[in-house]
């Protein structure tokens, strides 16, 4: 079965500094991987997805993620954090056509 581990439950950065949110996955075959963001009391918004094309995936709001099969990782990065990036981020692996497996989430705090 697929699983996702988000290595940090909380990450705190200063505005203007880089963001790194770490995600490892396990999969018995070539997975599809996603990052979603959730602001308080809101739905989830898709940031980016990997579906076996380019290993470096660019998403919305300046985020990107790199798929590394040898490390089974899919870390999310952003060169410069903005206050509006403060939210909870979920790494997700697609197990089947309809079942997404969510990580536990990482809460990103951005300090001014």
């Amino acid at each position, binding site marked *: 079965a697929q699983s996702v581990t988000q290595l940090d439950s909380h990450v705190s950065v200063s505005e203007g500094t880089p963001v790194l949110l770490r995600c490892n996955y396990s999969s018995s075959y070539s*997975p*599809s991987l*996603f990052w*979603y963001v959730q602001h308080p*009391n*809101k*739905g*989830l*918004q*898709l940031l980016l*997805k990997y*579906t*076996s094309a380019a290993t470096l995936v660019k998403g919305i709001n300046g985020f990107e993620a790199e798929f590394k099969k040898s490390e089974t990782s899919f870390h999310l990065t952003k060169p410069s954090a903005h206050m509006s990036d403060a939210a909870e981020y*979920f790494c997700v692996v*697609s*197990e*089947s*056509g*309809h*079942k*997404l497996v*969510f*990580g*536990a*989430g990482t809460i990103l705090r951005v300090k001014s």
Partner: protein
Amino acid sequence: SQTIHQWPATLVQPVGSPLSLECTVEGTSNPNLYWYRQAAGRGLQLLFYSVGIGQISSEVPQNLSASRPQDRQFILSSKKLLLSDSGFYLCAWSVGSGIRYEQYFGPGTRLTVT
């Protein structure tokens, strides 16, 4: 463009009362539809999904049920709510089948059972 609506946005219900949450999608045909629950400290849990009218798959046995009376309408129901039913309920949609297709989420319904 596609839009997904959920209502109500918030709901406070006593234990033992019935529940009906509604989700509708605009701008697409024959979507796959999903109900998730997000409880504090427990992540997102897939409750039901539907690939077509009248077709419902249940992922977790519980006192909830789902129905899809129309192509773009998905309803989550309960006859008698439990305290443990409290949480944030999210509806989502996707198109196509297979693992390559992302899901798009609605704004959610915050349910508090008292």
